[in-house]
């Protein structure tokens, strides 16, 4: 530079100019800060109002809606009712029909053995069908044969000759007997109110 800059701006004027600029800058920053604060406050107030409204709506819904305990109690009652109904249904509709049991036992009768009575009962615990047979056999040998056939069948359990005494039928000597046995039902309940599946069946 041929000639250095000869600046005639006095120091006090320079300071005054800088002060004015600083004042403007501070004022501007103050305004920006104020605007920012007002904005944040307005946003917070809106958010708080919104949250209050949501809380009020939630409280109203809670107040008007049934309680969880009541719902659970209702469900428990319904489950109990369904269980009772299921037990009745189980009683009415056993897994193995009595006619099948009768037919099976009838097929196992030896030639000189006959039945005079039969009682079928369904027990809950353990779940089984209790069968009590009354009949007459020509000889003890025939009775034993009948008992062995029953015991040999896989579907019958606990085959027991509970009574055996001599009797007379149409002038001939016979052996009156009482045989008891159980038919396990092995019923599995998958779901209350749905189909039941029997593991053991009768041929």
């Amino acid at each position, binding site marked *: *530079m*041929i*000639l*250095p*800059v*000869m*600046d*005639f*701006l*006095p120091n006090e*004027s*320079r300071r*005054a*100019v800088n002060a*004015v*600029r600083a004042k*403007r*800058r501070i004022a*501007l920053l103050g305004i920006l800060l104020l605007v920012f604060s007002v904005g944040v406050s307005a946003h917070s107030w809106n958010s708080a109002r919104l949250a209050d409204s949501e809380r009020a709506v939630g409280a109203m819904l809670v107040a008007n809606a049934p309680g969880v305990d009541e719902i659970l109690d209702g469900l428990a009652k319904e489950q109990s009712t369904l269980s009772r109904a299921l037990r009745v249904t189980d009683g009415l509709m056993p897994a193995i029909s009595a006619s099948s049991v009768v037919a099976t036992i009838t097929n196992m009768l030896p030639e000189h053995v006959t039945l005079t009575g039969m009682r079928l009962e369904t027990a809950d615990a353990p779940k089984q069908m209790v069968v009590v047979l009354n009949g007459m056999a020509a000889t003890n040998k025939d009775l034993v044969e009948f008992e062995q056939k029953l015991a040999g069948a896989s579907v019958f359990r606990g085959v027991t000759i509970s009574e055996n005494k001599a009797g007379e039928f149409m002038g001939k000597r016979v052996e009156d007997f009482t045989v008891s046995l159980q038919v396990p039902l092995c019923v599995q309940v998958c779901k209350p109110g749905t189909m039941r599946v029997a593991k053991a069946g009768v041929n």
Partner: protein
Amino acid sequence: MRHFQNILTKQTTAIAVDFADDALRCIAIEQAADGTWTRRVAFELPAAPLDRSMDDSALREFSAKVSEAGLNGCKCRVTIASNLFRMDMAQLPTMNEQELAASARFEAIDRFNVNAADVMIQHASLPCKTAGRCALLLMAVPLLIIRNATQAVMAAGLSPCSIENAACAALHGAELRHDGFNTGLIAFMHIEPKQAVLLVMKDGQLQSVRAMQGDWAVAAPSTEVDTNTIDNSLALEPVASQDAWRWSSLAEETLRCMRQACVESNLPTRMLVTGAPSSDHELLETFKGVCGLESVSLNSAGWSTGAERLTSDTWAAALGAASLDFKNISSARAA
């Protein structure tokens, strides 16, 4: 919003306000990567005399223009017409910078016969051939002028960061826009309406500064004619003449100044001219005829590009002052 942006962001535009005798000029320029100066804003207002506060209506107009240009809050450089300055060359014994400043101040007060409390004095060291001596350029300007200029600029919404002599500012601009200032003996003349300043440079070093007062606005046909109120101005005879010789008094005084400045060497071979009359072919011809040197107009109107072409060569001071900020702006951009 623009005001806030100007305050908070780094300034990328160089702005200058020129309190010239014929007008108040404001310019905002940007420098492109290739060195081109592009005008963003350039406007002229009626002249604002700085011996008194700027009147309200002028101030309002100035503020409105600044606001309209989106320059509110920007830093700017201010130039003041050369005729408001007192300037002289002095030689002092070699001394350190502090002593030199104090001595220069005393010398200026003594030479200009001014009250120290009422003026702002600055000096610049110049090369001196005499051993044990240093040459100084002394300048003084009334504080009232400085205060009025500062207040007007601040009231308009700008922040002045320097105040400079218009001729010196024009020299800065010319130095940046034109080559050849650093070699040989050349003369640079900045012509303002009431004063012409002649600077003689040798190999890029200032040798002499002379101010020539006169009614140069009257001589220049393209500028507004003003009544001559300067007591010690050169006579211009006749002022109404449209011939080339109306510039003869300026040319003759220039020749005398150059002879005085170049006592021990040849006269400059080239003269570079800025200012409103610089585009006057007759002025250049008169300089050539009287002083015997080639005179070239630096055409300050063409220093910058913009949407509208500048109408006269009166923008040299404003452009030169604004260009001082390009270095700061470039470093700010780089940061």
